[in-house]
């Protein structure tokens, strides 16, 4: 029982990180139809930038904030300089993001070197929380909570504000939304920047546990894509549900059948694709 609860919490922790990554990925896909291979690079840049900030100031929060802002700006630049001119040419955009991902990987290697590292825990969250027999690191619980807050905030923006309404319109039919006077170009920039920032934020949050290492940019990306496919491309709710499903399956899969841990992801994806090709909450 203890084992089960601990593993569930671990699964939720993976789900929290996945959601921070997949929410941006799915929105970028929804609005711009871009398969953004550079999304993992934003996640990686986040943790590397935070390592510099945390090294100087010892504050993970400041690191997260700076990483969010810097990477969101980088995202905006990538969108403006490289992607906007290829609107509605998905293959060209995919190749551009692939090129950008390789440039970011090499740039990170040049700037920060190739040594793996982890970020320092924030002092208040270094311990663990005990409830009965279950002992769980406080920091992991905290990350789950933060991701929950981010999800709630995104949902509130999506459902309750004008920007959210425009966003939903653009996801449903960006051409028609444009015809209605919504500035889809500007919205795309915003979504791309915020998505990049959230990925970076997720990277910082994972920093004390997973840390940074060369090649991390393509490590979590497969899982994030599976989340988006299962949840439905363009759907925030789908990203949330998908993250929990994939986080749980991946975690229990790794614990129970470590050799086939990626293969366990294959089954739910196939089932969803067979029954509902657009994903759980996606629209055709």
């Amino acid at each position: 029982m203890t084992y089960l609860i601990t593993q569930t919490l671990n699964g939720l922790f993976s789900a929290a990180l996945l959601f921070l990554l997949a929410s941006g990925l799915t929105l970028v896909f929804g609005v711009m139809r871009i398969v953004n291979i550079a999304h993992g690079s934003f996640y990686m840049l986040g943790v590397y930038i935070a390592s510099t900030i945390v090294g100087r100031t010892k504050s993970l929060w400041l690191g997260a904030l700076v990483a969010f802002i810097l990477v969101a700006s980088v995202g905006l630049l990538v969108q403006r300089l490289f992607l906007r001119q290829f609107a509605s040419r998905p293959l060209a955009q995919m190749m551009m993001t692939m090129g950008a991902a390789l440039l970011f990987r090499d740039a990170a290697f040049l700037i920060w070197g190739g040594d793996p590292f982890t970020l320092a825990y924030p002092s208040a969250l270094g311990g663990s929380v005990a409830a009965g027999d279950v002992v769980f690191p406080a920091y992991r619980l905290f990350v789950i909570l933060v991701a929950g807050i981010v999800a709630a905030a995104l949902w509130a923006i999506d459902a309750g504000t004008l920007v959210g309404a425009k966003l939903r319109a653009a996801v449903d039919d960006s051409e028609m939304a444009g015809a209605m006077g919504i500035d889809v170009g500007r919205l795309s920039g915003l979504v791309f920047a915020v998505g990049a920032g959230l990925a970076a934020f997720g990277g910082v949050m994972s920093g004390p546990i997973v840390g940074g290492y060369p090649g991390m940019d393509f490590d979590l990306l497969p899982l994030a894509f599976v989340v988006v496919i299962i949840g439905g491309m363009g759907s925030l709710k789908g990203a949330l549900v998908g993250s929990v499903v994939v986080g749980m399956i991946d975690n229990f899969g790794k614990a129970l059948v470590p050799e086939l841990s990626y293969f366990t992801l294959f089954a739910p994806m196939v089932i969803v694709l067979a029954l509902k090709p657009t994903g759980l909450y996606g629209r055709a």
Partner: protein
Amino acid sequence: MVARNGRVLFSTVIALLIAGPPFLTSYWVGLLTQMMIFAILAMSLDILLGYTGLPSLGHAGVFGVAAYTVAVLSTAQHFGFWTCVIGGLLLGTLLSAAFGLLVSHVRDVYFLMITLALGLVLWGVSYRWIPVTGGDNGVSGIPRLEAHAGLPVSGPIPFYYVTLCVFVVCAALMGLVVSSPFGLTLKGIRENESRMKSLGVNTWLHCYLSYVTAGVFASVSGVAWAYYNGFVSPTYLDLTASSELFLMVTLGGPGTLVGPVVGAAAIVLLKNVISAYTQRWLLILGSVYIVTILAAPDGLWNLGVFAHAFGHHREE
């Protein structure tokens, strides 16, 4: 006149490929062998990407499964040459037949994304199924083709000629496929699927068969690569590998069979020559992606200059 230029060029290239190797160092013979193996793979992707309009970002996965099959069968199981070759081809083909069922109803970006995920799952299996695949270390010690097949000769040059034969046969077969009525239907689907449907074409089946055909030739290339390299590891089927393949086709010229050969040769050449001089290979590769899309989005072979000089143009 223009068409004759093209024919002269091809005859020259083929003649050089046949007669040249004895005069080259083994480094260049090896490089030419690599180019031909990847050219088969790039052409197979082009059946999907260029001719059918289905952008697969998991194509290295099929290649990798065939290569791993040869590796595992020949090392851990000590099977004979033909068992390994047929096993690799069969497993690669069966895999694409199974994956094809999952992807043949989706198009465009969705196809891209789902094939990407499928390819990554294969990569994950190769990486984590350690008892069979050796994980990160891969499988090494695949016997040399010449020894395994019991040929009386050995060395890079016999291997080169075997690859050349395989390459010519595969290129000819793929040429037949794309110029057959089946291939023309694929082009029709690329241009306007709903019109093809209304003409009574089962577009799902055509896309499925296109996917499987591409898988067969990718498996051929994977088997050849396992013997050439003597070693397989997860890096040959990861996202970078799949997208490098994508780059070969896009850089060379999708929708032609010559284009991918040019692209594969260019990338293999760049990769081997440049990595000998600099550590910054990723930076250069990344720039090649961006410059390709900015400067030659239809590929080198489809650039006006080449098309006029050699009388080849992507058939619209």
